[in-house]
């Protein structure tokens, strides 16, 4: 029986072309990822300058601090950076060293923001509350994601308080001090600190609203 010919002259170039197209796809994909990382770096840098500026302003106008301080832009930028980092983490994975490094730095910026708001609270009778949210995406915490979702929802509807979210396992001396101060341990995550009161384990939407003393009248239209 006569053998049928195999058209290698078609298959080999087609195979090589497929590999080339795949490689081009990968290169484009990774450059897009690099562009996103660069975007976050740039934003962090802007915020670092902003927060430093705020600190210096507080030193310079200490006698008229309460009238001069305006944290709205600073806070908005922090929120935007937080969202970007969350998104980046969902793309790159929780164990990505690049994201971990960015988050580490972000947590320092958060602590700095928190300190500034604390200072304003003491000096200017600012009633704005805060929640420190300790969670982990790296370790084992079944309720952390749910707690994050509830907090985001409450904050979106009652924006008159600050939320500071910290990954428990970040290697960061300032964060370690904060954990020590509120006695945060890995096996009791998620942990919320609402205006200096510590709550271990998952807390519902109603509980958080009560702890923050917000009512439906405070809800944003």
């Amino acid at each position, binding site marked *: 029986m006569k053998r049928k010919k195999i058209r290698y002259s078609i298959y080999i170039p087609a195979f090589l072309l497929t590999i080339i197209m795949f490689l081009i796809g990968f290169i484009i*994909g990774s450059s897009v990822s690099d562009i996103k990382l660069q975007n976050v770096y740039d934003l962090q840098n802007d915020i670092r300058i902003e927060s430093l500026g705020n600190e210096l302003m507080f030193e310079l106008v200490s006698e008229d601090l309460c009238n001069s301080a305006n944290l709205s832009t600073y806070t908005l930028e922090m929120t935007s950076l937080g969202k970007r980092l969350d998104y980046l983490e969902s793309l790159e994975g929780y164990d990505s060293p690049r994201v971990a490094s960015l988050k580490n730095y972000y947590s320092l910026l958060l602590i700095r923001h928190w300190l500034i708001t604390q200072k304003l609270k003491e000096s200017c009778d600012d009633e704005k509350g805060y929640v420190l949210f300790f969670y982990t995406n790296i370790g084992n915490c079944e309720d952390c994601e749910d707690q994050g979702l509830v907090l985001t929802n409450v904050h979106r509807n009652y924006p008159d308080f600050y939320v500071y979210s910290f990954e428990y396992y970040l290697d960061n001396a300032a964060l370690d001090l904060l954990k020590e101060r509120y006695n945060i341990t890995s096996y009791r995550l998620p942990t919320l600190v609402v205006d200096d009161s510590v709550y271990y384990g998952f807390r519902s939407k109603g509980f958080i609203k009560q702890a923050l003393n917000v009512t439906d009248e405070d809800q944003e239209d």
Partner: protein
Amino acid sequence: MIFTFYDFVIYVLSFVGLFVSMVYIAVLLTRNKHRHKIDPKFKPKISIIIPVWNEGSAQGERIRKTVDSLLNCNYPKSKLEIIIVNDGSTDNSLEIANSYKKHGVKVYSNKKSLGKTRAVNKGIKHCTGRFVATLDADSYIMPDVLDKLISCFKDKNVMAAIPSINIWKPKSILQKIQFIEFFSAVFIRFIQSELGAVPLAPGAFTLIRKSFIEKYGYFSHKTMVEDLEISLRIQSENFLIENVPDARVYTSGLNNIRGFYRQRIRWFLGLMIQLKKYKHLFNWKYGNLAVFILPTMVTYIFLALFLFYYAIIMLVKDTVEWIHDVLLAGIDWASILEYKFDIFFVTIRNTTVLPILLLIIMIVFFMLIKRISGEKQSIFIPFIMFALTYWFLGSLGWVLSIYYYIAKKKVKWGPNYYDS
């Protein structure tokens, strides 16, 4: 980037899909445009067998259109033998068939329905042509089809020649989807023919060298896909099946989903059974059929299963997660109403780009085959319907077929039952 199992499968399938597309492009670029030149002197006798089972009043007498299309074709009448085999119809099919006797049409009849295959074989036994074609009683040929197909047989290695088969004036959504399903088969058969490796000569219309049937056997009535079986038999003997894309035959699309799935189960299940029976064809000596066409068909089965599994899993997972989130935090109207577009949150992943790229390539192929085959019916709206639904409809057909195969369920086709 996170690399999940699904990503891995999408990468593998996209790579295969892209490679297959590149092969198709290479075939298109290197094809011989004058391969199917009509030879006006080569007009051997052709016998056309039309098996009929309740194609009269039960189906709006569409058999008339089928026979009329043959009587109106360009092929010399003296060289054309039309045979109608009435397979125990209970309507007026026989009466209609007999009315064509005055036009020289021969009519044979089974008192009881024995199934399409036995009816076709009966017709072949009575026919006198050197070439024999089977034509379904719901299909119609264009006037130049026989002239175009017969020229292929000047090559002694060609045992069968097939036209483009498409749906005539699709009206319902289901028919429009079938139109593109058939149209994609037109393209694929064209490529397979260029590679000398057509694995299926469709039963709706195929012209076969009668000497092959006499030597290697008639259509097998033991299978539910007699057309595929005889095609693989032709390939087993290392002969050729030629496709002439601009020879057009039309058939009626099914109009109910139950019939649609019954047909797909018969086709897909039949394909699996025949691939197992003819597994020796996965051998290098069978050329492009072994190294490219058959592996592509097997990959397609996996793709269909993966698409179905992936779609169902994702749908269930997303719904469960959404319900969980709503119960926990309520519907977050604020985030929906205050949504602001930000390019940062748009990620073009390779796993999204590659299937989109393949879809674009597919559209280009469709436009090309539309030109090559001379198809006049618009493909735009049907293609949109096909792209939106077939990934599920087709995949479900495969899932059901595999269930039939594993559960060894019997399949009814006509009056007969077939083992899985």
